């Protein structure tokens, strides 16, 4: 479904990704783990077009993402839940969700998608008229995921969904990812919470200093000694 080949990317003279190749097949949940500053967020941003790679290629179901204008990439079926949620704090929950359905294809099905998101997050229905910025971190994360789901994506990009949340809420977020998966959605998730993320994904890549250092199924990654020592503390 999604395929990256030898992608280089960076900010100005700073290079953050070095020859990253990665693929996600339809129906899979794939994790990208690695330390702070490894280039995980940059990886998400090149996929959704927020920054453009300096070399390499990215395609979504055969369509070249590099040739797609950045605001049309969501129409390819890619929805990106950015790092730190990035809700519109002074818009209501419902207006935030409305923005998620901005593209013409999604507008036509707004009511149907809204019902889907409210079923998934009944809390959002209760808070639909509340300013998004006044909600708790966990609720904001739900709203951010809900906003991404409004476009009825095929591939959901989740950037550090557990960051800054209380442990109980982190648990809830990963439960949610499992539920979203079971609906047939393909997920690419970037996380520092290695232990948790390996429980919900099928496969994972280890990204360090901008390069893929290891990859394999969740079991293989859990069994990998260097990963166990560096990220799981055992």
């Amino acid at each position: 479904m999604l395929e990256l080949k030898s992608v280089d990317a960076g900010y100005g003279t700073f290079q953050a990704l070095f020859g990253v190749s990665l693929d996600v097949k339809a129906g899979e949940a794939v994790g990208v783990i690695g330390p702070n500053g490894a280039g995980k967020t940059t990886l998400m941003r090149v996929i959704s077009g927020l920054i453009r790679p300096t070399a390499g290629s990215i395609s979504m179901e055969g369509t070249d993402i590099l040739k797609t204008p950045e605001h049309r990439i969501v129409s390819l079926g890619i929805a990106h839940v950015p790092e730190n949620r990035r809700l519109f704090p002074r818009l209501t929950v419902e207006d935030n969700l409305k923005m998620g359905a901005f593209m013409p294809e999604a507008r036509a099905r707004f009511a149907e998608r809204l019902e889907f998101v409210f079923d998934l997050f009944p809390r959002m229905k209760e808070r639909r008229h509340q300013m998004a910025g006044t909600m708790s971190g966990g609720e904001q994360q739900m709203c951010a995921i809900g906003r991404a789901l409004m476009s009825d994506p095929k591939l959901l990009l989740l950037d550090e969904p557990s960051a800054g949340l209380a442990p109980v809420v982190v648990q809830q977020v990963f439960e949610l990812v499992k539920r979203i998966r079971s609906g047939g959605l393909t997920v690419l998730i970037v996380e520092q919470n290695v232990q948790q993320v390996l429980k919900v994904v099928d496969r994972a890549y280890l990204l360090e200093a901008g390069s893929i250092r290891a990859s394999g199924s969740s079991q293989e990654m859990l069994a990998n000694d260097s990963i166990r020592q560096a990220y799981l503390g055992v």
Partner: protein
Amino acid sequence: MTDIFDIYLLEAMVNGILLGGVLALLALGLNLIFGVIDVTWICYAELVMIGMYGMYYMVQVFGLPYYVAAPFAILLVAGLGALLHLLVIAPLLTAPPINQLLATGGVLFVLQSFATVAFGIDFRNLGIRMPVLKLFEMHLSYSRLLAFAAALIGMLLVYFFMKRTYIGTAIRAISQDRQIMALMGVDTRRIYLITSALGGALAGLAACLLVLQYDIHPFVGLSFGPITFLIVVLGGLGNFVGGFVAAFVFAEIISLGGLFSDLEWGYVLAFAFFIVMMFIRPAGLLARRS
């Protein structure tokens, strides 16, 4: 004696409210541009001036009825706003704010000079004399009542556009987080263009209303341009509600100041009030606590 004085006071206050409506309309247009695109159109009042000339030519020279000419004038200035964005602002979007300010300041002089060359410096007017309404001993001109009502309707339309439509929601969202708009499938360049046209349309509507009260000349923008900037700054740049409140505060100061002395003193009082307020509340009347 006291009765007559009270009536004058009341009349001045009502006139202040009527003036406030049009000023609020202008402030809304400027706030919209600032809030969304993060630039200040120094030449905003000059767009109004061009719109007033548009009305003059359509009504006086081509003989169109006022109500037929007005929509065309609004469209004309909306187009001018879009053009200003495409030709001047878009190439400077990433430039330092001072450069953007200087560029729109340059457009101000270009428009004034253009008007001087093209239309001459004669004072012109539409030649429409509207009757005066007598209400409880007060004299209120219909042109001001019409301006107030039309300004309110214009602002209400903008309000519903901003609240109800996808484009309007995007306009509100874009000022809160510019970078992620592409993730929502929003083409920011298109939103900027639409916002510029909307800002222009509001200037066009103001032109249609002000042309009933002011004579038209190339420097007429100076009569309400500076006061609009004070209102927008006092209300807090980009703060729609603040701009609305500040417009009426200023209009009342001008109107009541003019009652106790000359109209010019009303303006002096308004500017003095502004300077004092900048010391007390530099971020604006309704500054958001951060």
